[in-house]
């Protein structure tokens, strides 16, 4: 819930405004949000007129995983985003019997992820979110883990 919306509801709860006024304010808020969205979409449309190549080139193409252990061990993995997408798409096609075994094995290793819940329509959203994700872990014993896209 947005801050404005919760403020309006709070004012209604405190009796500072009537239900009718609250409704009008919420409608105005929705209209403003829709207007902002329209302008954002039209701006995006304007920006991709012509050759979309430069925009596509600007998108991250690799997922990097870097582990720098305190004892001097280093792991550096560069995974193409296309491979991540292919892997995720593959999980939705794994036969149910095999998927049960995978889930059990992962649960035994402390990773309770049910890949059966990963729907094909969610994969693009997941990959898009991955492009904006950066994880940095600095553990107390000096181990450092960094996951990012570029």
């Amino acid at each position, binding site marked *: 819930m947005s801050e404005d919306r919760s403020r309006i509801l709070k004012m209604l709860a405190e009796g500072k405004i009537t239900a009718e006024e609250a409704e009008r304010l919420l409608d105005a808020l929705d209209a403003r949000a829709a207007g902002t969205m329209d302008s954002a979409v039209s701006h995006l449309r304007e920006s991709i007129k012509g050759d979309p190549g430069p925009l596509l080139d600007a998108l991250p193409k690799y997922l990097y995983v870097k582990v720098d252990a305190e004892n001097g061990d280093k792991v550096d993995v560069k995974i193409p985003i296309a*491979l991540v997408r292919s892997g995720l798409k593959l999980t939705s096609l794994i036969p149910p019997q095999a998927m049960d075994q995978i889930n059990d094995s992962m649960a035994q290793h402390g990773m309770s992820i049910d890949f059966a819940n990963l729907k094909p329509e969610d994969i693009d959203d997941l990959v898009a979110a991955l492009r904006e994700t950066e994880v940095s872990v600095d553990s107390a014993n000096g181990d450092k883990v960094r996951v990012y896209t570029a």
Partner: protein
Amino acid sequence: MNALPPMILDLRVAPPDRRPVHVWLPLFLLWPIVLVLGVLALVFTVLADVVLLLLGERYHHYTILLARCFGMLWDTRGLVLRFNDKATAVEMTVQ
């Protein structure tokens, strides 16, 4: 999806107190064999899927699964793995 499949596997291993090893594996020589095997496998998966479908099984997607496996192999181009400990360094690049 990449325009081309992985062509070369470049493997470098630097073990302690020994000469570094640099192996260059021409994956492009394997692709024709993989293609033939893939086509043969596709025949079996199509048959299996048809039989499973006729039997009323819920899962009958082995053909798509095989195609996606090939797609995943195709997309390994660009993968780089590097492992270093105090003594040994290993680097694997799929080009």
